[in-house]
């Protein structure tokens, strides 16, 4: 299962990058970026998976003493939590930039924003 999700994650990463590289509309580029981000998160969670493991929460099903054998690795989960929130921040910022760019030039075409070059 973890292989499948990891492959899915990587494919999403590549698809997202493809979107970033090929789409002409800035919003579409940002969508591509968020797909890229989601893919990364899936890869990270897949790495944490322990065969037959349960969620890293101590409750009735998992006693304190059994945790070490039963639960999946909590570390990547913690990392993904952080990464998701960071991703939200970055995406929101990109969108606000897109808005500003639109206000400047009344277009979302990425080619029209290359005033700075060479």
């Amino acid at each position, binding site marked *: 299962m973890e292989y499948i999700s990891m492959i899915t994650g990587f494919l999403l990463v590549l698809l997202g990058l493809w979107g970033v590289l090929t789409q002409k509309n800035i919003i579409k580029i940002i969508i591509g970026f968020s797909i890229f981000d989601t893919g*990364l998160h899936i890869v990270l969670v897949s790495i944490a998976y322990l065969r037959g493991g349960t969620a890293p929460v101590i409750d009735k099903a998992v006693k304190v003493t059994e945790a070490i054998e039963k639960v999946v690795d909590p570390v990547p989960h913690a*990392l993904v939590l952080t990464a998701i929130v*960071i991703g939200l921040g970055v995406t929101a910022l990109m969108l606000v930039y897109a808005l500003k*760019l639109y206000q400047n030039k009344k277009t979302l075409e*990425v080619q029209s*924003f290359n005033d*700075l070059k060479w």
Partner: protein
Amino acid sequence: MISPIHIITLTLGTAFFIGLLKKLNLNISALLMLVAIAAAGTISASWFTAILSGAANAEVFTAGFNPPYSINLLMGKGEALITLLINLAGFLGGVYLLKSLKERGIYTMIIYLVFIMSLNVIVMTRDIFNLFVFMEVASIGIAGLVILDKSSKATQAGFKYLIATGVIAGILLIGIAFTYYFAGTLNIDVIQQASIINFKAGSIAVFLVIISIILELKPFPANGWGIDVYEGANPGIGAMISAASASAMLFVLYKLAVLVPESFLQIITAIGILTFVGSNLMGIKQSNANRLLGYSSIGQIGLLTAIVGLKPFLGAQFELIAVSILISHFFAKAGLFWLSGIVKKQNLKDWAMLRQKPYLLVLFGIFIFALIGFPPFPSFLGKWELIMKLAHSHHFYILAFILIGSFLEGIYLFRWLGFSIKMEDANLPPLTVHWNKIIPVVLSALGVLGSGIYFGTITEIAASLKYIPLLFIALLYVIDFLPVYVKNTVSIAGIGYYLYTIYPDLEGFKLIFGLIFLAGGMLTLVAGYFKTGTRKGFYPLVMLMFAGLVGLIEAHTTFEFFFAWELMTAGSYFLIIRGKKSMTHALSYMLFSLAGAYLILAGFGLAHIGQSSYALDILASVQSFAPLVFILLAIGFMTKTASVGLHIWLPGAHAEAETDVSPMVSAILLKAGVFGLILLMLNMGSQFIGSFNIYYALAWIGAITAVMGNMMAAFQEDAKRLLAYSSVGFLGYILFGLSFMSHLGWLAAVSLSVVHFMFKTLLFLAIGGIVYRVKTKEMYKMGGLIKKMPFTFISVLMGIIVIAGVPPLTGFGGKWILYNAVLEKGWFFPSALVFFAGIVAFLYCFRLIHTVFLGQLKDEHREVKEAPFWLLLPQYMILMVIMLFSALPNSLLKPIGAMLAPIFPEGALEWQGQLAKSGFGYWNGQVIMYIVGGIFVVVFAWLWYMNRNAQKVKQFNIGYSAERPSLPETTHFAYNFFAPYKKALGFLVSPLITNFWDSASEGVHAISDKVRRIYNGNVQTYAFHILAFIVVVYLIIF
């Protein structure tokens, strides 16, 4: 000691707290922001000093668990230094940005503070995911700060930056994830022990981490987004990115470099070098100041990246090299960005505005010289050590590329400096300077100067450097407001005193050249009394050049020699650029000098292979590549002697220089190259490539230089240019003489050096006096001045007699010995050229005396007076010496001969009183003088007798036929004086060499222009570059 964690708690806490204040009070918020950064800086500084004086590194364990279980921070020497730099930049940048931050509100202060905080964490953290988080904080912070300026360009730059760093961060995250999977930890130290690079997937994970860090450092060519940010953002932010952020990321690279195998390090080096050369190449074509600074920043960071990659080979010197270059970059780049914010004009040519406030110009110059690596700035030391170590470890290609990159950087930086000193500034708006903007610039200039001197004192190799001349120069800056005669007297007295103190230690060549440099310097300075006013900034620069020259004489080690060489170059550059239309000439002088200096540096580096000492006599025992060392050093020195091919800087530089500067840069400065060549040849002796004698090539170069220089001189319209070219020719004789490696050859060369000093000072002062009076340098606009300026006429007459090498004056003696040397040596083909050159010399001598002094006096020159007394005085002092040496040639030649005897015992002249005997004949200077004098008297008397009845025609007693030629000068007999010869021989002087350098320059510019087209401004292209960069490097490594 305060725990380093409080760097973070203070800054972050303040940032959160400022949010509470909101609109309450902007001033209080700004104050709090600066106080927080200053406090953070104080903590770093206290740790830095503590660790330097032996305290243990500080470790911070968060969450009460030991690493690797929780995130830990480390405060070691490196961390302390880098966080200190970051907080320093943060503080100064905060002061600089005060107005902008207040204008855009409290949010911007929060962003700024958080940004500085994140850089501190990036440096200190030992956990790679934590690194990722705070790198994101820093990226977002930059993206937020970029839009401090409301322009559309800033927004575009910020957007590109966000996308690019977003993609990079994603790749980093993949790397971190798999590093965690394979190593089971996120702690850098534990990852290092886990040795996951031993299998492919593990090393790919590490590769992804490292490549992301490298990408954050904006490697060529995947760095368009970074450059756009530099251009689009407020320069105050550019300063932060270039100085603070880049330092932090470099440190991260250094920190993570322990994870990678050596093959990775080589790739890092290669990427760094490529970036250094590539972005400096693109800088050449750039005309926008901020963007240019961006290219330069990225280039410098590339160099530092390469240094990180080269760490294993730099040994104990790594710290010194990295830190000195980093600090120079740090202060200089921050200062330049801040200056750019003050100037507010983006076109480089508009930087002429800086002249409105001369101290800004001084600051600008300091930063430029610090970036290029001139003494006494830290980068000088860093570059020297780097080159030495690279040569030692046989990294020749890297060495070459670093020097090429530095040279390319020099091209645009010095062009820019030239613009600011010389460009037209008629239509530029006035410059306003606010205190908060200028203080950071001044402090960074002081920072780079102070750190340079500090590095000088702590480094063993630099400990022997003499700073007394530099102190004297500083004194001259202090008294710069005083009138010329005071400063001139102080300067002459200073040189005189210095000569007096070192005189007992001088002997042999050092004595001769020491006298040319110092006594000659005093003599030419005497002419300076004719100036009135204060002549601002002149004397420190003159003294800088003389300090360099005397340093050459006093140098015992290659390092001291190079130090002095660079000082001399810097001083003479400024002297030359003071001239009238000298912007381009000063630039080409600087570029040739820079190239020469780098060749010398490379030569010294190669010479040092396998030797432990830096003493100059290691040249006598070069272990490997001896011919190459010789060629590098010889070409390096020949840039100063202006040998053919390397001479194109000279005519313009000498001709455009001020009246009393021309003799300094012509008669004196060129001898530095001769001195270098003598030192080289003395130590290295004969050199062969296979069976080919390199000296034979030198003889040809000398001969061709002589012919070409003299012919060019003959075809000039400009009197000072004529003299300049004649110097080129004469230096050709000297090189020719030296190349013989025989007693007579050297006797000729050394005595001609002395003679050249004398007559060139004489002629430049004389012609300078005329130009000063008649306000033109064109010879056809002069004429008949013999009656108006008789004293000057006598000087020029004597001068050209010496130049032409005709009896009875001392120039003949030198030539006579040279011809004897030729007969002895038997290199007849080049010698034929030299003979021919001697004939050509007559042409220009004749032209000089004829068109200037004889013929008709121009109407507008009727009121012309004799040259000023202070210009004539040194001329007549020299004339006396010339007469002495001519009448008693052995007073000059005998001591030189005695000095040469131990080196070349064979073939010395025999002296019988004033009679010199060689294997081929004899010459008695005294007798010749009497004979020639006698003939002259007889002929003159005869002519006087024959013409006593001739009728004098009034000057304007002629009629015109009412024709007005379109070009009035064409009717003047002195215009295109040697037209027939030019027709016959002109092809020889067709500007092949100038054309060659022009097209070389054009080629470089064209390449630069082509290469920079990859930055098409499209964010998708940039993202593509980033990904392609990763894939390509991957393919190279795996």
